[in-house]
């Protein structure tokens, strides 16, 4: 019996080796296909995540809740210090609230004077965080809203306070948010009092650094960082965070969003601005004249420049 089996193994071994080689070849081919035609394979991935992760929710939710309860219980241990801290913060907040109320009134008056009409189309969809990225090298979360709810790639995502990231990958019922701390995240920002423009480049650390800052000496730790709306990536003036200086003297940003507990996220519906493709069509007498016949040709050339 034993001899039979070993003989069979000896016979089967080369065949097995060929089959494993074929499997490795298929896997490498899948990788190369992903490298060449990424969107198609990524769509497959999104579809898989869309099927798989909401199905695991029944298992994940109780565990998440339990870990949250343990963490809350631990925080009971230092309830006294927390109470003191909260009182101090409340005092500061009261002062801020006064300032905010005054500013709100002033703002309303000024808006009334100048008859500014705010964009009424900036609305949001709120989603619940389903899952983490699961890998230490990626910073993303999965939301339970997707194509069904009208979510589209590239939209900005905020928690109650600040910008969290952008939508990248939309399935039917789920969508993935790349956080600002992910190594692939690049967001154009402006730094508030000085108006300096910069790029907030995630590098997989909790405090993403500012890059391409023109005059770093105009920026001080403590300055507010808001999205600049450059490049049409995000709507302008969403709060991102505060500037700090790291121990390596690089300027970094503390996100205003609370990355420790991302639970409900707002996806801002942003509508793409009308692209200006035609330089000649902009300046026209009030009555309007017919565009020159070669406008279409000019337009296709000018669009890529501007």
């Amino acid at each position, binding site marked *: *019996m*034993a001899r039979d*089996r070993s003989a069979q193994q000896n016979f089967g071994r080369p065949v097995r080796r060929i*089959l*494993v080689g074929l*499997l*490795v070849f*298929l*896997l*490498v*081919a*899948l*990788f190369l296909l*992903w*490298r060449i035609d990424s969107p198609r*394979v990524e769509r*497959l*991935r999104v579809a*898989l*995540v869309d099927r*798989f*992760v909401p199905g*695991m929710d029944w*298992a*994940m939710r109780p*565990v*998440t809740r339990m*870990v949250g309860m343990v963490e809350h219980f631990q925080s009971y241990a230092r309830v006294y210090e927390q109470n003191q801290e909260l009182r101090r913060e409340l005092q500061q907040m009261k002062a801020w609230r006064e300032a905010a109320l005054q500013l709100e009134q002033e703002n309303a008056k000024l808006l009334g004077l100048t008859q500014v009409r705010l964009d009424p189309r900036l609305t949001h969809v709120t989603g619940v*965080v*389903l*899952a*983490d*990225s*699961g*890998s*230490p*090298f*990626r*910073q*993303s*979360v*999965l939301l339970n809203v997707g194509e069904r709810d009208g979510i589209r790639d590239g939209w900005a995502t905020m928690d109650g306070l600040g910008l969290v990231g952008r939508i990248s990958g939309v399935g039917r019922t789920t969508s*993935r948010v790349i*956080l600002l*701390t*992910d*190594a*692939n995240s690049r967001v154009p920002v402006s730094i508030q009092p000085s108006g300096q423009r910069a790029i907030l480049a*995630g590098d*997989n*650390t*909790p405090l993403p650094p500012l890059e391409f800052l023109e005059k770093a000496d105009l920026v001080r730790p403590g300055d507010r960082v808001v999205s600049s709306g450059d490049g049409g990536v995000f709507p302008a003036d969403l709060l991102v965070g505060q500037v700090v200086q790291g121990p390596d003297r690089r300027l970094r940003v503390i996100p205003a969003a609370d*990355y*420790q*507990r*991302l*639970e409900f996220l707002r996806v801002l519906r942003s509508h793409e601005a009308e692209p200006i493709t035609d330089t000649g069509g902009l300046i026209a007498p009030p009555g309007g004249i017919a565009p020159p016949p070669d406008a279409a040709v000019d337009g296709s050339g000018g669009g890529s420049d501007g």
Partner: protein
Amino acid sequence: MVDAVRSAPWGWRALFVAVVLATLVVRLLPLGRAAGGWPAPDLVLCLTCAWVLRRPDYVPALLIAAMVLLEDLLLMRPPGLWTAFVLLGSEFLRDRASFSRELTFMAEWMMVAVVMLAMLAGYRLATALAFLPQQGLGMALAQVAGSILAYPVVVGASRLLFGLRKPATGEVDAYGRRL
């Protein structure tokens, strides 16, 4: 009855799938870990190495490939590449499964550590060749070091919880064949 289930490889294969899925769920929990923390060890890799060296027939190559590919897709890694390296590494160990029955645990651990490091090196080389953004070397090495340290724990847990061990000399399976 438990013994009957345990002696059949299908029960073990289902167990392998269940353990891999459980680690996936734990990693996907939305607990809001901050960026830049220490990476957790790759338990699926440890489990694969440990089981392949103990009972190669419980973890067929196709099962390993399917599980790691699922992990690749869910964890936003380049699909297929890490799976290919895990498959190659596990095949290397599978060929040495009978040889490792004579090794002490220390020597087996060293062998697994070398294989894990070689897999990391191959993976990084392949991502560099494909012009993909590399993850930080320190973080990647920390993860492999964690996996190597976790290996004895995984072996011990497999032994204690599931009763998985190397077949003794002359042990026979349910059909009376020599292992």
